[in-house]
């Protein structure tokens, strides 16, 4: 049985309802669907920002996400996974990333969504810079907390 997997990198926004309906389709073995939507906030590190610019490594970004989706499929009994990551200029309030996981039961769907987000934050080749009201641009620093969150999956016994 093949599990439906969708991975897309795009400039344009995505629609949560469309993607959720596409993921579940008519599969009545799905009892739980978890979504995570990451949005551009109006502040970074205490500074008001006008926009984020997201740069990525085409080819590798898709491959890296696909590897982690495969990893998630071996760890949890999933019925479907969707990952959409935007790049380019994104203003506060707009969406950046969508992770959708479907399973028979909720624990697998929650765990897989958290796992994928922790890895996207630390391993997928994306880089954010912000545009501040002053006109300054600033590359966002990686957060230790994100590395710690990703590291917990390395030792997790499943």
């Amino acid at each position, binding site marked *: 049985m093949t599990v439906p997997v969708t991975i897309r990198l795009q400039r344009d926004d995505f629609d949560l309802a469309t993607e959720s309906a596409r993921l579940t389709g008519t599969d009545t073995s799905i009892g739980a669907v978890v979504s995570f939507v990451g949005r551009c906030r109006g502040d970074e590190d205490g500074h008001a920002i006008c926009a984020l610019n*997201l740069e990525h*490594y085409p*080819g590798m970004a898709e491959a890296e996400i696909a590897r982690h989706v495969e990893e998630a499929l071996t760890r949890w009994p999933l019925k479907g996974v969707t990952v959409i990551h935007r790049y380019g200029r994104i203003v506060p309030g707009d969406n950046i990333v969508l992770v959708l996981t479907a399973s028979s039961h909720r624990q697998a769907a929650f765990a897989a969504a958290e796992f994928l987000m922790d890895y996207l934050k630390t391993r997928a*080749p994306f880089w954010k810079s912000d545009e501040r009201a002053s006109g300054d641009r600033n590359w966002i620093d*990686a957060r230790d907390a994100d590395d710690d969150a990703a590291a917990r999956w390395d030792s997790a016994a499943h």
Partner: protein
Amino acid sequence: MKVLYFAWVRERIGKAEETIEPPAAVRTVGELIAWLASRGEEYARAFERPQVIRAAIDQTHVRADTAIAGAREIALFPPMTGG
């Protein structure tokens, strides 16, 4: 050998990619970064903290002690901040 640069590594060097031919003594990713840092002021600035630079060979993450022999495409970049 094609080298790609991303984010502030790209900005400091002033280009997104180039083709290089490092000397035979440059065997690992770490040695490649050190050799690149010696190529001029912009490279020196891009690689002034080599310990934070991440690398991928042919689109797979690698460590600084990985051999570069046979690589078609090496990417050098700061820690990732996606998601």
